[in-house]
Structure formats: structure tokens, C-alpha cells
């Protein structure tokens, strides 16, 4: 893991984020530190789990904290930054506001237990093809299986859920 890799990851997240309306923290040194954290976690666990949360090390248990985490959008909307302050609001990105402490949202809202929705609630097209929703960016598609990577936000296949 090198400074160049951290820099490359930073450039990629910045480019992809901005194309989708997300902004990285303007403090580049702080972000590069987080990039090293993401790379370290990827090396350690096999997936880039949140640098600011203690991972279990089991992908199924950590799916919600793989960066970008399931809590990013809610925290951006409420606090103007995600828990790590990697992603920030446009005002903060432009330097008009500074990031405030973000309380940990994970675990404060009861997560719907798996299998809560009955099969008939799950969405299909009229032709019977299941509809999948990316839990990271909300992208919807109808196909027999979710894509390997979200074409919009590049999240992995297991971040998709059946759309009801």
C-alpha cells in the first residue's frame, strides 16, 4: 500500500463521486488518510469497509459499512457529512461550512429483519423479470440477477436488494 495508491483511489472516488453529485472532503490530507484506511481494510478484510468503524471481518455482517456505507446519504442530509467526513455536502466541499461531529447512526434505526418482505411484495416487470435496487445509490434495473457491479456507483452485487 503506497501513497500513490491512496492518491489514485482519491482521484477515482472524487471523479466518480462528482459525476454522481457527491463531494469529497476538501481537506485532501484528511481524505488521503482515509484512503489509506480504506486500502488497509481492503487488504485486511477483502473489502473496503468504513475506516471509522470496527469491522467484524465477515462480509455479510459488514455489508452495510462497506464504503460508501448505507448511512452516507442520511448523514449527508442531516449533518452535511458522512460518519467519517469523507463525503460532505456541497457547502462543506466549497469551504463555506466546516464539518460538524456526526453521531453514529448505525444500529440506532432498527434494520428490517432479512426475509421480512413476503415474496409477493417483491417487484417484477410484467414479463416476470425481478427488479433490483442498489442500496448505495438507488439505481434500479430489471434482470434475472443483479449486476456484478452497479453501473452507476460501482457498488458490488451484494449491495443490491430485491425491489418491492
Amino acid at each position, binding site marked *: 500500500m503506497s501513497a500513490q495508491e491512496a492518491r489514485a483511489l482519491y482521484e477515482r472516488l472524487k471523479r466518480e463521486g462528482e459525476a454522481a453529485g457527491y463531494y469529497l472532503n476538501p481537506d485532501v490530507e484528511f481524505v488521503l488518510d482515509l484512503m489509506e*484506511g480504506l486500502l488497509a481494510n481492503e487488504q*485486511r478484510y477483502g473489502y473496503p469497509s468504513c*475506516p471509522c468503524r470496527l*469491522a467484524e471481518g465477515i462480509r455479510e455482517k459488514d455489508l452495510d459499512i462497506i464504503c460508501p456505507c448505507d448511512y452516507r446519504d442520511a448523514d449527508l442530509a442531516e449533518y452535511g457529512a458522512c*460518519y467519517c467526513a*469523507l463525503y460532505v455536502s456541497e457547502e462543506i466541499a466549497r469551504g463555506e461550512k466546516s464539518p460538524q461531529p456526526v453521531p*453514529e447512526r448505525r444500529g440506532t434505526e432498527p434494520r428490517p429483519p432479512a426475509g421480512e418482505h413476503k415474496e409477493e411484495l417483491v417487484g417484477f416487470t410484467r414479463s416476470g423479470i425481478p427488479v433490483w435496487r442498489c442500496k448505495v445509490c438507488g439505481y434500479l434495473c430489471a434482470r434475472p440477477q443483479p449486476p456484478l457491479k452497479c453501473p452507476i456507483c460501482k457498488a458490488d452485487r451484494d449491495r443490491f436488494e430485491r425491489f418491492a
Partner: protein
Amino acid sequence: MSVAVYTTPTCGFCHQVKAYLTQRGVSFTEYDVSRDPQAAAEMVRLSGQRGVPVVLIDGQVVVGFNQPLLDQLLARQTTRPKLGAMIADAGRITARKRLPLPAGAYVGRVDSGSAAALAGLQPGDVIVQLAGQPVRTDRDVDRIMANVRFGQTVDLLAWRDGQTIRTTVQF
């Protein structure tokens, strides 16, 4: 005051919170929860969550780099007037460095801008009397300081290179 910081080496706020505590002169024990399963379990039990950093100040839990809350909890601990000098038992310094010092509190370092600095205290001085009471070891200073209030001015006698100097300390 006991301060513990639960961190992972990957988190930006962990680095910031440690830098902040160090800057404020707060000493703390750090636990890397990504390497220390026992500390990790303790952090989850104390804070009910897995986000880092978690700062524990005398049993109070702070999740994240919440500077206003840290300031509030740390302020409770530092509302007493401070001399602002590192002191040690002069007797032990005499024994260790073979310096001919009188009994008292040996001044090792003076914090800039502190009450001690404004009183003209210098490293190498030995406090021999404070607020009219004799000082024979560094512990005497702690004992006397426990009764000092903000706004109070106290006399201080110190030994410096064989001379006794007299000054006043304004708290």
C-alpha cells in the same frame, strides 16, 4: 483524570482526536480495537456501537471526534488553578544528578504563559516555600495548590543557583 481512546489506525478522526488531546496536554491510554479483541469488546459494551474513535473520560463515553463534548468533559477536570510547571522532588534530583540542591520541589519545565512562567520561575529552580508554607517535596506543592483559588496571589520562595529569590504567583 483517566482518559482512554479506542481507535483504529485507519480512521482520520482517530488521528485528529489524539492530536487534539495531545495539544491540550491530556495524557491518555490508546487501544487499537482492530488489533485488540478484548479492547474491541469493551468498546462495544461501553458505547453500544462499533464506530471509532471512542473516548472515555472518567467513565463518560464520547463517540467520534465531538470536540464540544470533549471540551465540556475536559473542562470539568481543569477548573482548578494550575501552577503550569513540571515539578519533581528535589531530593531525588540531588541523588540522581549529584546536584547540591536544597529540599523542595525541583522545576523541570515551565509551560509558556502559565502562572509559573509569569512569576518568572525557570527550569532548575527549587520551590522552597509557597503561600507561606514550607515546601520540602513536590507533593507539598500539590497539597498547597489544592487550596488555591482563581484570582488569588500567593508568595513563592525559590532557590536558584545558591540564591533565594522571592516572587508572587497570580492565579
